[in-house]
């Protein structure tokens, strides 16, 4: 017991080593939050392009608009294929050592990598949600005179989000934990914070378990928050 207490003191108290954990936690949260927002934005745009392309039906005329949509759709498909087909760690290393090599900020590199990565997955989640909305909803909106975009924003997407929410939460949780690979580019996030302590004090047990518990608590928090959101969204269902 005294042994454990000594370890605790050397792991966290001496030289204010607990700051590795709190500082790392801040970085993890920052990267996750920004990547979540940007990833959802990318995902939404891709999902709309893909759905607009797939739902436009047969085309009679080769117009410029149709050709443009074909082009963007092909790009989106390529993007999703490449991102989902390669490991996120490889993407992170390529971004850091090749594409964004002139960037000084590791946080920026991490945020961009995870946004782009998450966007591919989120786009498929949104696409599934949009496709699952009854096509009568689009027809009803359009028959009232609303444009495609207005109908999407006011009618289709709110319903799609509701059915996509569980999968989105899943993606958020995965994203949060995946940021632990940022140590590979020397970004001091939560996992690396714990690992630095381990490397300094040669005690693996306490720092690594602490890090694990912090991840677990964050995931529990996310689950609880979105469980509530889901219940609130269900208020229009009274079947």
């Amino acid at each position, binding site marked *: 017991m005294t042994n454990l207490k000594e370890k605790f003191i050397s792991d966290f108290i001496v030289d204010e080593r607990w700051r590795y954990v709190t500082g790392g936690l801040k970085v993890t949260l920052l990267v996750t939050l920004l990547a979540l927002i940007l990833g959802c934005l990318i995902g939404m745009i891709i999902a709309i392009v893909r759905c607009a392309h797939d739902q436009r039906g047969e085309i009679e005329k080769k117009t410029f608009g149709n050709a443009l949509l074909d082009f963007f759709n092909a790009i989106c498909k390529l993007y999703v294929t490449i991102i989902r087909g390669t490991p996120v760690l490889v993407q992170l290393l390529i971004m850091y050592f090749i594409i964004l090599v002139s960037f000084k900020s590791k946080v920026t590199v991490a945020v961009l990598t995870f946004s782009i990565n998450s966007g591919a997955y989120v786009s498929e989640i949104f696409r599934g949600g949009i496709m699952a909305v009854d096509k009568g909803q689009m027809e*009803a909106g*359009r028959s*009232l005179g609303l444009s495609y975009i207005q109908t999407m924003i006011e009618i289709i997407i709110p319903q799609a989000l509701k059915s996509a929410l569980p999968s989105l939460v899943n993606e958020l949780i995965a994203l949060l934990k995946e940021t632990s690979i940022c140590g590979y580019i020397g970004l001091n996030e939560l996992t690396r914070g714990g690992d630095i302590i381990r490397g300094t004090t040669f005690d693996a047990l306490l720092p690594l378990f602490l890090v694990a518990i912090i991840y677990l608590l964050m995931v529990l928090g996310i689950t609880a928050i979105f469980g509530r959101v889901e219940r609130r969204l269900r208020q229009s269902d009274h079947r």
Partner: protein
Amino acid sequence: MITVNHLSKAFGDHLVLDDLSEHIEKGEKVVIIGPSGSGKSTFLRCMNLLEKPTAGQIIFDGQDITSKDADINKIRMQMGMVFQHFNLFPHLSITRNMTLAPVKLGVLSKDEAEEKAKKLLDRVGLLEKADSYPDQLSGGQKQRIAIVRSLMMNPKMMLFDEPTSALDPEMVGEVLEVMKELASDGMTMAVVTHEMGFAREVANRVLFVDGGKVLESGTPDQVFGNPQNERTKEFLSKVL
């Protein structure tokens, strides 16, 4: 009000509408009947371009809506449509269902729209449902809401695509009642339906459609009482 010239619609190789021409006068109530798969719903859906015609021309209120320059959203604002499956917006309250389009499209202010929604809901006896959600309503109630939702836009014409086909039998009457009232107010209506009683009572004209063509057109008395076309006779002998 609306003139359809040589309208054709094909889905792939399958020709659903075959060189169909028709004219509907202002204030006229036209009921379209025919066997399933005859193209009657497609014909109706072509009128507000929910289906894009493969060939032909549609003139609505003096404007060629099939031309490239036509602003389809503007045209649809003047043409209400009621669907078989109601298509209310499940995530919005009844009031929001009704006020969304007129407010978004700048036809009415929010207050005006809410005022108008109240009046219309009162007219169809559903004022107490103003804050409910679609899933809390019966089929007949949903369809009545769908009708007044279209009326919020002050359409010049109303299209009904089998409005009572998805309803339990005891709810058909309440929806037809609203439609009759609308007809007596002078609304121009095109109705695809299997309700022959409604057709007899309300229609100025009945169209029998089969194989993508109008095979017979006339007053309800003519079409129901003395059909000329063999296929009309056959169809009516099955449904009457």
